[in-house]
């Protein structure tokens, strides 16, 4: 309907026209069902689709999920306990798994090893005895272990044949199976990163949030704190903090202490990110609306502001985990942190840190493989999450 009536005189109300005819909102511009899916999708769904584009990130996520799942049953998955020694098989190289013996299919097996001491170089030499076939047993009974320290069990996924040995990744200087040790070490190495990141997460959000929201002198104090902590090289701080941990603490408590230390020194990056994000976000209208409605600052921060960039935080945190894992290995190198008899990948790597291993027993360096894989996986995952974090870009 065209507007034909003239403009009203100044000061007078404008005419108001509302059509009574029925009107379908979607008639002007129809959207197809596919489009409907996209435009009406919740945020997390959008993130998931964006995340899926990064194929490697997805694979890494799956890989890590599996790895973390194995922590629960690591004793079951390993053929030996992490402390089981076999003094007749010290520094034994990895055994090859064969399927065919003399042309016949026998199933997975290893050949038994013969041990001889080379008296000239004092080197232990192992040769394959191709006559003795040691078939690998599955779902068998092996070393006893306490599942999570509670239930005593004996079943393993696979074990050596009776009377034989199965060293998939070789043994170390006390004859302990490396495969079992790497599986056992995963428990500590993987979780130390998570706990440490959680500590720094909490600290970062709380402190950064306060600085970002309140600004002013709170912000200044926090900024100085961050500056102070960031200008000190991390290693001296680690040294000092680790040196004051009492010797009498049990290994578990030491472990927690280390995670707290790693987390305490890492929150600054997160706090800075939170702070800068909050600076830009707090000027948004919805914040002002919430304030006008009388919401307390803590509610505003936690309910309105933080979820807005939670995805970004998660991405940052995911990338911080590898730093923790590497930090644990660095601490072990300096003689702080976890020491034997606690088993973690860092401890295993330290035991491999000498020329004899590099030159003569290189299989002892294999724990570096899961370390590298996990760190890569976390990095790719974090990249993918961060790319997906802002789906409205």
């Amino acid at each position, binding site marked *: 309907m065209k507007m034909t009536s003239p403009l009203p005189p100044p000061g007078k109300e404008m005419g108001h026209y509302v059509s009574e005819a029925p009107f379908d909102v979607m008639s002007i511009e129809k959207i197809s069902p596919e489009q409907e899916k996209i435009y009406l999708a919740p945020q997390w769904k959008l993130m998931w689709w964006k995340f899926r584009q990064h194929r490697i990130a997805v694979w890494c996520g799956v890989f890590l999920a599996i790895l973390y799942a194995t922590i629960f049953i690591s004793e079951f998955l390993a053929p030996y306990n992490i*402390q089981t*020694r076999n*003094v007749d098989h*010290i520094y034994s190289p990895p055994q090859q798994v064969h399927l065919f013996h003399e042309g016949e299919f026998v199933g997975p097996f290893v050949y038994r090893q013969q041990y001889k*001491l080379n008296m*000239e*170089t*004092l*080197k232990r030499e192992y040769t394959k005895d191709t006559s003795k076939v040691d078939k690998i047993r599955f779902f068998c009974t092996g070393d006893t272990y306490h599942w999570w320290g509670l239930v005593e069990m004996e079943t393993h996924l696979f074990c050596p044949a009776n009377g034989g040995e199965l060293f998939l990744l070789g043994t170390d*200087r*006390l*004859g302990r199976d490396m495969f079992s040790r790497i599986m056992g070490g995963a428990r500590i190495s993987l979780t130390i990163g998570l706990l440490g990141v959680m500590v720094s997460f909490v600290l970062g959000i709380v402190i950064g949030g306060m600085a970002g929201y309140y600004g002013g002198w709170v912000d200044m104090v926090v900024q100085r704190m961050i500056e102070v902590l960031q200008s000190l090289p991390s290693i001296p701080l680690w040294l000092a903090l680790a*040196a004051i941990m009492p*010797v*009498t603490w*049990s290994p578990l408590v030491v472990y927690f202490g280390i995670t707290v230390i790693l987390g305490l020194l890492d929150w600054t990056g997160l706090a800075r990110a939170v702070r800068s994000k909050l600076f830009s976000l707090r000027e948004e209208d919805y914040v002002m609306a919430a304030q006008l409605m009388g919401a307390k600052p803590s509610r505003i921060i936690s309910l309105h502001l933080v979820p807005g960039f939670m995805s970004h935080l998660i991405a940052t945190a995911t990338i911080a985990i590898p730093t923790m894992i590497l930090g644990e290995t660095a601490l072990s190198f300096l*003689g702080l942190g976890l*020491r*034997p*008899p606690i088993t973690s990948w860092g401890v295993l790597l330290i*035991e491999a*840190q*000498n*020329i*004899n291993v*590099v*030159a*003569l027993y290189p299989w002892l360096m294999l724990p570096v493989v899961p370390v590298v894989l996990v760190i890569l996986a976390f990095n790719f995952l974090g990249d993918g999450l961060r790319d997906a974090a802002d789906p409205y870009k």
Partner: protein
Amino acid sequence: MMRCLRLALLTMLLVLGVQTNAFAMTFEETPYFSDLVKAGKIDPVARRVPQQPRIIDLAKIGREPGVHGGKLRMLMGSKKDVRMMVYYGYSRLVGYDLNYKLQPDILASYEVEDGRIFTLHLRPGHRWSDGAPLTAEDFRFAFEDVMLNKKLARGGLPNSMLVNGKGPKFTVIDELTVRYEWDAPNPQFLPALAAPLPLYLTYPSTYMKQFHADFIGKQAAEALAKERKYKHWRAMFIRLGRQNRPENPDLPTLEPWFNTIAPPSEQFVFKRNPYFHRVDSNGRQLPYIDTVEMNISSPNLIPAKTGAGESDLQGRYVSFEDYTFLKQSEKRQGYNVLLWKSAVGSKVAIRPNLNFKDDAWRAVMQDARFRQALSLGIDRHEINMVTFFGLGQEVADSPLMQSPLFDEEYASAWASHDPVLANRLLDQVGLTKRDDDGTRLLPDGRRAELIIETAGESTVETDVLQLITDHWQALGLKVFTRATQRDIFRSRLKAGNTMMSVWSGLDNAIPQPSMSPEELAPSNDSQTQWPQWGLYGMTDGKSGTEPDLASARRLLSMWQEWQQSRDDETRERIWNDMLKLYTSEVFSIGTVNSTLQPIVVSKKLHNVPKEEVYSFQPGSYFGVFMVDTFWFQDGLGSD
């Protein structure tokens, strides 16, 4: 009559001739100095050596006389290791020979009267490395102006010069003779002179007087100190005069080589001492080798570097673990790997701390049966097989077979593997009650959990502890190991916070009766089995606590008896008594000794013994074997 006279004359000449055969000896000039001698800058060799040099007859000790020349390369792990040259050089007033018997070295001779009066005779014409003569004045300066100077020696005289708390009466008899006299015998005096870290009775006085306030005046001394960036003249004097750590290139020395580079540096070069007092029987002044190059590197890299052929003589920082790697690289590089025996009482020894703060535990540990049980519970054979290829001796913490004080009784004291007897002994001690998992309970109901602390420096220790944990599990004792840093380790021990600790066994495992048995008695606060009692013994009762155990008190009194002994028979008797008591009481739980120490020697280096005992006390590492007699084929090093 004429006949008698002629005979007398002949005899006299013969005697004189024998005495002055040194003059009759023709010396061969050292090629290193030939240019300087020709230019007149330095005396020819005949005048550089003392008029009565010490002649080393190499053939008599089964070695080959050598030729001059070459550079010896060594790898060390810290810049403090310059002190190694004092150990390797082993030039002492009185030293140990290859059988660890005392013999004069720098001194021409010495006499001991009644075990308390020591008369020392110097070699005429003996000079310091800068050419200044070595005379009695150097001894007097050292004694009166340094050792007795309250400002320089704040701690007073060292223990080896004190008898009943009193120092000696020092007299200069003539320019080449001095005398130290005590009221009672001082058996520690000569061993202290022969020790790897010796008691220094002499200072290069001509050089040092220019830094001493009493000789140049206090103001001049302080000004000099300021100029050289020291806080006081005392600090300057002590630093510049440190003979046991040759950091000052200008400090004259009597050692075969002297340092030419002041720290900080990654490399220290030692050059030969032109006035060294030893010669070989061919008239060549020792040492054979011209220079020693000491390269400082990270300790963990040293095995790798040695395997790459970067060292000509290496015993430090390589251990038995590295043997296979070194042996395999032997052919590629130009060295041989020898295997010497490591001379400690036990490679890994566990010591219960009898001064532990916890009363209940202390009572248990002070019961000898507890310690004996622990010792019986260890399967030394497994440890030997796993860690040392079965090449060690499965014995208690005791002297090695090479020592005259070795006895099967001491070595096998409580060293068999007998868990049955061990369990019985533990029951007798009173640990009869057990927890659900089989762990024994203390009388007050707590679980018998042993916490063993280590300085965390050696994987061998960790491995052995791992094995022992399992062995003692069978006795109903749970073991936890804690690794710390060395200084925390020691401070905790002194404070009584450590229950048990791990270290190596007896430091001197090839003792002679003439050496002090202090390790067997509470004599030092660094002894990890009884730090407080050790402090008591060290300070003569002024600090620390008196030993509770009668056996420890007995050891203390026997040690004091040794300190007043007059002859070697008495000392031998005391040693045997002490060893018997010490090993039967098991104050230190030994595992394996006579383990092997790889020694890497360049193929071109001669006179290095093929199989010997490697020890700090008393062998001074390579010192006793006379590094100055090692020589390079054709005088050419490995360059």
